């Protein structure tokens, strides 16, 4: 639990994982390279006291996750951004099946995202329907950089992607998280741009598109799109991790997002376990935009804006009544443990 201005804040970590990046799960050299690259991100932006050894980073336990998010990390709920990477990891990296084990254990704590891949073609429609029927799938995480059968990426504007988005409509899935971020592969397909979001957002105005990592390193392109499209949201994962070691950049990113996108359309995310939410949430709660940026952009990161970003915006997207949800969470095993600690 964290307070801003004396008021308790409901925190939804909009972007978190429970992965298996251990050597036993590496399918080939890509698996090793993948997890090492993640670890570079971890080292690059974590404050010293939050750095993990590589062994733990490759595969952490349920207990680690529960502690890092809920017991110590000020997080009330987390959104599982399932990531498959089956061409790199034998059992997948963090599939919805893997994540479901935790959802079963703590059903009120998590929002489970599934996925689709247009390269499955029509043959994948049934698999997709079954996934939504069998699991409590409430959103999707799309990874346009995923490798599949020799192809190394796809676009949200591909005709087959549209067929799947139509299926989302039919099945009542409204929130689509899309990875648009640093480092990952695809060749000229979309390595440098977020414009496919623009097409999909215009053509599916009833779906919400949460652009994870705010398109970094394509923040500017993302801002132009999000400004125009009502249903495009900014997912702060990766950007939020700048807050400790590069606060000025973080402030500039926030000033831009507040100006172009607005405080109602920004969602907090830690990208756990690349970074642990504790230090990010704490720093965010006390963060002040520097005066020159406030002046220049005419925006401010007010306590109200912080509350929206940390949880209220995500709660609205997922139809969560915060008061009712808090009451429920106080009763689950984690809530009871937190209650006991506080007493």
């Amino acid at each position, binding site marked *: 639990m964290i307070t801003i201005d004396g008021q308790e804040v409901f925190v939804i970590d909009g972007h978190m994982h429970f992965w298996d990046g251990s050597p036993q799960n590496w399918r080939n*050299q890509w698996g090793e390279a993948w997890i*090492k690259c993640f670890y570079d*991100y971890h080292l690059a932006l974590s404050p010293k006291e939050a750095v993990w050894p590589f062994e733990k980073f490759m595969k952490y336990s349920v207990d680690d996750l529960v502690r890092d998010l809920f017991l110590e990390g000020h997080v009330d709920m987390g959104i599982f951004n399932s990531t498959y990477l089956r061409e790199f990891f034998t059992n997948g990296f963090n599939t919805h099946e893997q994540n479901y084990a935790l959802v079963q254990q703590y059903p009120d704590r998590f929002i489970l995202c599934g996925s689709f891949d247009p390269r499955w073609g029509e043959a994948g429609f049934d698999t997709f329907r079954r996934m939504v029927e069998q699991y409590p799938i409430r959103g999707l995480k799309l990874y346009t950089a995923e490798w599949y059968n020799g192809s190394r990426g796809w676009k949200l504007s591909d005709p087959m992607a549209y067929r799947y988005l139509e299926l989302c409509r039919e099945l009542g899935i409204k929130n689509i998280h899309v990875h648009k971020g640093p480092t990952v592969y695809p060749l000229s*397909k979309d390595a440098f741009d977020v414009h496919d979001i623009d097409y999909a957002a215009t053509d599916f105005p009833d779906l919400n598109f949460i652009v994870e990592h705010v398109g970094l390193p394509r*923040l500017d392109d993302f801002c132009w799109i999000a400004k125009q499209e009502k249903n495009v949201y900014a997912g702060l994962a990766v950007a939020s991790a700048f807050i400790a070691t590069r606060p000025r950049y973080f402030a500039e990113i926030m000033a831009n997002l507040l100006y172009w996108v607005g405080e109602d359309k920004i969602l907090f995310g830690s990208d756990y376990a690349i970074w642990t939410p504790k230090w990010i949430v704490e720093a965010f709660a006390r963060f002040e935009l520097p005066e020159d940026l406030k002046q220049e952009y005419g925006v401010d990161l007010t306590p109200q804006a912080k509350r929206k970003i940390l949880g209220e915006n995500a709660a609205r997207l997922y139809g969560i009544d915060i008061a009712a949800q808090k009451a429920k969470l106080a009763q689950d095993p984690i809530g009871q443990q937190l209650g006991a600690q506080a007493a």
Partner: protein
Amino acid sequence: MAHTAKSADKPCARAVHRSTLVTRTVADPNGKDGPMEQSALWAQLERVLDPELDESIVRLGFVRRLEQDGSSVRVVLRLPTYWCSPNFVYLMADGVRRVLTELPGIESVRVELEEHFASEEISSGVTSGRSFRELFPTEAQEELDELRYRFLVKGYASRLLVLVQALRSAGASDDELVESSLGQLEHTGDLAWLVLDDRRRGPVRGRIVERYLVRRAELGLPMLPESPLLLLADGQPIARERLTEELRRLRATVVNLRASTALCEALLHSRQQWWQSERKEVWR
């Protein structure tokens, strides 16, 4: 090397930094390369930019080794992540080959990538002068000129904004900025001024002006003395009433470049650890 990249933020560290970089990272096993030639090679490499960051690959610390053997040069690049997008990597590697073969006496250039998932394809492809589409026929849908242009424009935005900010803090008013022409820039040594009828604004660092002018010329924008001082990338002058809004747009691009650069520097620094520890190759 990350420590050199970090110091690139500090202007005063630059001159020193460049010469230390040469002596520290040039491998010269035969001892027969004169320092003049080596510095000529490095000077050429300085011109190769990371297209996305609009910064020299030398300043960013991506050049790991530079070896010359007669007319052949071998350059090893180390990038911030294993997953850097191949199109950007190709642009940099091909840039290295191009600038070095421009030097008299250099006939062949081998560019190698340390630990990148497409090391093989890009190294051998660039060395033999093949195009990006030839290297990745099923995935690359266009050649890279468009991509290169897009990032030249972003870099221009950044350079334009830096110039405006420098001149503003040296006392130039917005009216003076939008009404001035290129011919009013006075550039001597490391310093530059904006010359008005009765006074001059400045000084600002010469490099700021230089970077702006170089990129402006690369984009084919008017360079005549009477051309407006400030031009958008599409060649339009900035109207006084549009200035604030245009600067805000430029600003988003610049924030992006800086944040990306900061991230790349930090990642490159983190990557050092894998070379220091023994590599386990478990999957074999």
